[in-house]
């Protein structure tokens, strides 16, 4: 759109409403079409109905699992692991990030260690963790922590590096102590970055968690559910699980944390470029 056209844009209010309703309807229509075609193709026998059970059968199975309470157990356990791991990642990631961003010793110690550990695929730790801490929630929680922590550290460091030195000068000239600078300048200053870090980190963490559950969970968790189902070849459960994993992943990353991020961008006018 040309510069002139963008200036004109706000005047067009009515079509905007129509565009908004279309932007809500469009995903429903396009995803709905995929399921509809799938349903018809499976029922008509154009595709292998064992490998691709019709969506209606998947929904029915999910409903049954939900009624039996099994499904809620799987979801609850996955979310518990995600939240615990994320909380650890946010706390330690922020602390390490601040140490790297603000202190010479932090940079000297952590930067090389991070460069050494970051290239290791997160899931490669799973077997080692299984031996070290055993088959329990701690293994999956640590995998979530590893997956999210690097992202949190990275964004916190870039947040601190992006802060103007003048902010510190202003605070120091007002006579602020180190502690006051930390609480009143650094922490609020890195907040938008931290939220972006949490959003990206939670995306990575969710993906890692599902894989870790397939590898390590002895019971419960969505990842365990679909892997376990493959042993019994209950395809409806696998597809239902994949669908739930996708929906939860989307909602966690784009709706819950995404809303938070949008609110901070609106409030502070800080857009974190990643």
């Amino acid at each position, binding site marked *: *759109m040309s510069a002139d056209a963008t200036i004109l844009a706000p005047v067009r209010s009515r079509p905007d409403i129509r565009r908004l309703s279309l932007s809500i309807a*469009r*995903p429903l*229509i*396009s*995803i709905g079409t*995929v399921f509809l075609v799938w349903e018809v193709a499976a029922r008509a026998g154009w595709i292998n109905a064992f*490998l691709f059970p019709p969506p209606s059968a998947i929904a029915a199975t999910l409903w049954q699992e939900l009624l039996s309470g099994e499904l809620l157990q799987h979801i609850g356990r996955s979310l518990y692991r995600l939240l615990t791991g994320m909380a650890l990642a946010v706390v330690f990631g922020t602390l390490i990030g601040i140490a790297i961003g603000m202190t010479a010793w932090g940079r*000297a*110690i*952590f*930067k*090389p*260690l991070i*460069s*050494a*550990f970051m*290239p*290791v*695929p*997160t*899931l*490669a*730790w*799973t*077997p*080692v963790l*299984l*031996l*070290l801490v055993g088959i329990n929630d701690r293994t999956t929680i640590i995998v979530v922590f590893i997956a999210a922590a690097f992202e949190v550290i990275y964004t916190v460091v870039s947040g601190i590096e992006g802060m103007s030195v003048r902010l510190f000068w202003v605070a120091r000239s007002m006579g602020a102590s180190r502690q006051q600078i930390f609480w009143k300048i650094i922490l609020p200053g890195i907040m938008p970055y931290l939220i972006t870090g949490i959003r990206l980190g939670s*995306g990575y963490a*969710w*993906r*890692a968690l*599902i*894989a870790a559950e*397939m*590898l390590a969970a002895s019971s419960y968790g969505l*990842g365990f559910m*679909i*892997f376990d*189902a*493959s042993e019994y*070849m209950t*395809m409806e459960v*696998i*597809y239902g*699980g*994949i669908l739930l*994993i*996708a*929906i939860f*992943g*989307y909602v*966690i*990353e*784009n709706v819950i944390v995404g809303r938070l991020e949008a609110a901070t961008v609106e409030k502070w006018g800080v857009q974190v470029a990643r």
Partner: protein
Amino acid sequence: MTPDVAEGSALLKERVTFALFDRAARTVKFLLPIAALLLVWEGAVRAGLAESNILPAPSMVIARAIELLDVTNPAGGMLLTHIATSLYRALSAFAFAVLVAIPLGFLLGLSGTVYRWVSPVISLLLPLPAVAWTPILLVAFGQGDVTIITVCFLGAVFPVLYSTIQGVRSVSRQSVWVVRSMGANFGDIFVRVMLPATLPALMSGLKLGMAHAWRTLVAAEMLAALSSGLGYMIFAARSYMDVPTMFVGIVCLAVIGMLIEHFLFVPLENATTRKWEGAIHVGGRR
């Protein structure tokens, strides 16, 4: 040679030596914490503070790596087989992903209407870990290369697709206008503007795609490999409580991941996007 020039060259020499010294100092400073960690670890195991059968000392890991690399040993040379198998799987998955994602990305990026209708489906698939498809693939194809390569393909295809779309959509209208006012036809616009303008985004997409393929590979091999691959090696070693082998695998995964980036993408970037950015970053990267 005038005294001025002589002095100048002496100064230059001094600066070059200083730069070399500076670089060496930085390398040492960089390696120091890593070395310290390894030493503490080694010391802790030897002092009996950590159980060596659960957390083996670095020296034990190195010894096992040598053992696994030793071709003369009947059981040796296995590591190379694992590495070769893993590389073959990851690279072929990546190649398939590129072949599918780049044309599809251009199609979706160029057509606003198609993009608007397809993007909801893509954003639903995006947060899904590629590994989640493994159960279905296991039922359909069983364990083996087909399942592993398909999972890695699914891991690599979305970053490449996404970056291609973003790259194509970020091409400014004006740069297309410039060549159209020179009398360019669609082919000219595509080859001379669209393709090169998309390249920087594409490059980061390729890098990300390869990284995803490599990271997904481990999990896929743990779940679906029959006999070889680094992921299989690590997972199999767990059954024998062979922790040194597991660490050898982890180090191999990290190092090969870095080598791929360094030898595949850095030269590619130097030849293209980095050249355009100019010779501003003469000194070290970053």
